[in-house]
């Protein structure tokens, strides 16, 4: 852990300590407990990759010779693709492993799989798993950095970071930089959402005011302890918001009926142009995808030029994942100050 003394003075040239003290963790299992400058360090590191990704030639050899395993125990298309592209653009050898759902839940298979992967001497393992805490369990058993690509309903740290980076780029275009005083409304299935948890940790740590909005059945108990304001009335939650982040209904995680119907959900929590008008005039619209158009978000809002950041989120995702992979492999690559 970083000692409190390591925190840089406000106004100093660097926003974070030098060398590995800027991010003194082997793994990225979650954003909970990370210091503000650790988050900013990763965001700043990602900027160069945003630039690179916009060039015609998008490949560097920074991670040449390194092996990255993407072990996905839960179905994923977008996140897996994003991590694969990130690793390849850094020059690493990337292999993807899809693990059949049925064989995982039994006995020691998960640990056995982790040990098997470890024996192949990867330089980083990216893991997605359907159970909260599973990534940390694997991280304890392997010798290389582990990146959490989403574990159950716990965390999805690269999503939290990419959302913060997306917001920051949009703020800069408007002459702002700081998250302080920013009001972010996260609306949707908070209960089942690891995206919401990582975003809450990230945004509150960076100084934003976060409102979470959901019907009672989709609002986890005691969420106010995470320094957010829980609300049930979407119109009130939108009032004066600078950023509106919509979440998908995770029907696959629901046991039993949480809402009467998609139509009724849209009636109360769908982001329509009329609703969006209650937020700040230039409020930003975000969605981690995949979207249910016509349910939690109307097409006209999702496609709103200049306001909707949904495709930019995807773009930032690759850059953030490149930054995380590059930073976490610095020790193995013997980078000065990190070895």
């Amino acid at each position, binding site marked *: 852990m970083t000692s409190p003394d390591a925190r840089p003075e406000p106004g100093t040239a660097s926003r974070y300590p030098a060398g590995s003290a800027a991010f003194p963790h082997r793994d990225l299992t979650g954003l*909970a407990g990370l210091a503000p400058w650790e988050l900013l360090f990763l965001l700043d590191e990602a900027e160069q990759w945003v630039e690179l990704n916009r060039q015609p030639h998008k490949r560097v050899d920074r991670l040449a010779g390194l092996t990255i395993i993407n072990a996905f125990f839960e179905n994923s298309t977008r996140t897996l693709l994003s991590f694969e592209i990130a690793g390849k653009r850094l020059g690493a050898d990337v292999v993807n492993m899809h693990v059949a759902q049925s064989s995982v*839940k039994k*006995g*020691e298979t*998960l*640990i056995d799989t982790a040990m098997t992967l470890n024996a192949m001497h990867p330089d980083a393992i990216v893991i997605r*798993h359907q*159970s*909260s*805490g*599973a990534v*940390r*369990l694997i991280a304890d058993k392997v010798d290389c950095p582990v990146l959490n690509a989403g*574990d*159950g*309903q*716990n*965390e999805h740290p690269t999503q939290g970071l990419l959302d913060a980076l997306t917001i920051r780029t949009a703020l800069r275009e408007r002459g702002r930089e700081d998250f302080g005083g920013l009001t972010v409304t996260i609306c949707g299935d908070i209960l089942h959402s*690891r995206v919401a*948890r990582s975003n809450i940790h990230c945004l509150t740590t960076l100084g934003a005011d976060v409102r979470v909005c959901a019907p009672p059945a989709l609002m*986890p*108990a*005691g*969420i106010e*302890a*995470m320094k957010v304001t829980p609300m049930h009335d979407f119109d009130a939650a939108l009032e004066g918001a600078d950023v509106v982040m919509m979440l998908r209904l995770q029907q696959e995680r629901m*046991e*039993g009926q949480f809402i009467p119907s998609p139509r009724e959900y849209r009636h109360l929590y769908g982001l329509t142009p009329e609703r969006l008008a209650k937020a700040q005039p230039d409020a930003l619209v975000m969605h981690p995808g995949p979207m249910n158009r016509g349910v939690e978000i109307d097409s006209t809002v999702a496609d709103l030029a200049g306001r909707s950041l949904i495709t930019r989120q995807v773009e930032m995702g690759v850059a953030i994942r490149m930054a995380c992979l590059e930073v976490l492999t610095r020790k193995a690559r013997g980078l000065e100050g990190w070895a």
Partner: protein
Amino acid sequence: MKTLAPLTITNGRIVGPAGEPQAGALRCADGRVVAVGAAAAPQDGDRVIDAKGALIAPGLVDLGAFAIDKPAFHFGGITRAALMPDQGTVLDKPAAVRFAAQSGKPDLWVHPLAAATKGLEGRELAELALMRDAGAKAVATGRRWIADSGTMHRLLSYCAMLGLVVVTHSEDGGLAGNAVATAGEMATRLGLPSAPAEAEALAVARDIALAELTGARLHLRQVTTAAALDLVRSAKARGVAVTAGVTPAHFMLSDVSIGDFRTFTRLSPPLRSEADRQAVRSALADGTIDVIASGHDPRGPEDKRLPFADAEPGMAGAETLLPLTLGLVRDGVIDTARAFALLASNPAALLGVDAGRLEVGAQADIALVDPDRPWVVSSDKMAAAAGNTPFDRQGVQGRVTALFKGGAAIG
């Protein structure tokens, strides 16, 4: 069978039904206590054991263990264990009950709890009278409640007639769903499926109402929340034949302990809030809770080295049952006599077995206990079949120095 010479334990402190332990001796012959206190003195030919100031206490009667794990039971001073019906072969037939009842003898007596319903599925009543006559000492619903109130009503009225206590699991299954934690800040931070603590009070309220209606004797195996304990307290005040139990986990730990996704703290019911933990301690002090049991459920890595929600619930509790209960004595929550009432005489009375008390004529199930001896719980050095204890590396005080079943020394 070789007859044992009479046994006299001298220089001990005898744990009685009330008050502080009294210095004295205890003599037993033919497997039974024949003299206690001042009247007890060794006679020619006796085996004589100097207790060296240790407590002379009744062997523990563990109401509700999930496995017969003799080394762990003996380490913990347990001489009788009521076995939950949730076994590989569910205890829902007389033959299974008869086999289980014989499985620990001679040095551990197992009292099977008959499955209330066939296969513990909560639908059809099992053959309770036949199982009673095969040796079942009570009836239990197993790890889950019986969802259908009509079935529960019929079960309780039938058991009232048979004179069998019904041991229940107090969690409303509909509200609990697939929860592995109590709803609240910790479960929310971790992203674990959770259910409101009120799931317990709902089940307790229903089962008390039905017990009151039918006159059945109801034992709520684990009551872990303030709201449910209030229901038990008021039912007892009305004279309802209800008793309540708990395991040390719920008076020692709150849900803060699940913070690291440590599956050894994955229990059923799940760990509760700190306020509920304090309510359990108050209920132990004021007599609302009648039984402390181990809930002994040794689980190996194949059940526990998994993500939290995928792991099986349960802890290996037999070895820590006594020291953690004696911790309540040191904390001034209860006195020594009440500690052994909770651990031995109350559960024995519930099961209707002649044990748990050191009186003339009682079975000579005796534990010598050094209540102050310190030791450190260590998951990888336990006597139990598996080391899944949430108290790993914790220092405790109180250890059994000798154990006798029917006057015969164990180990």
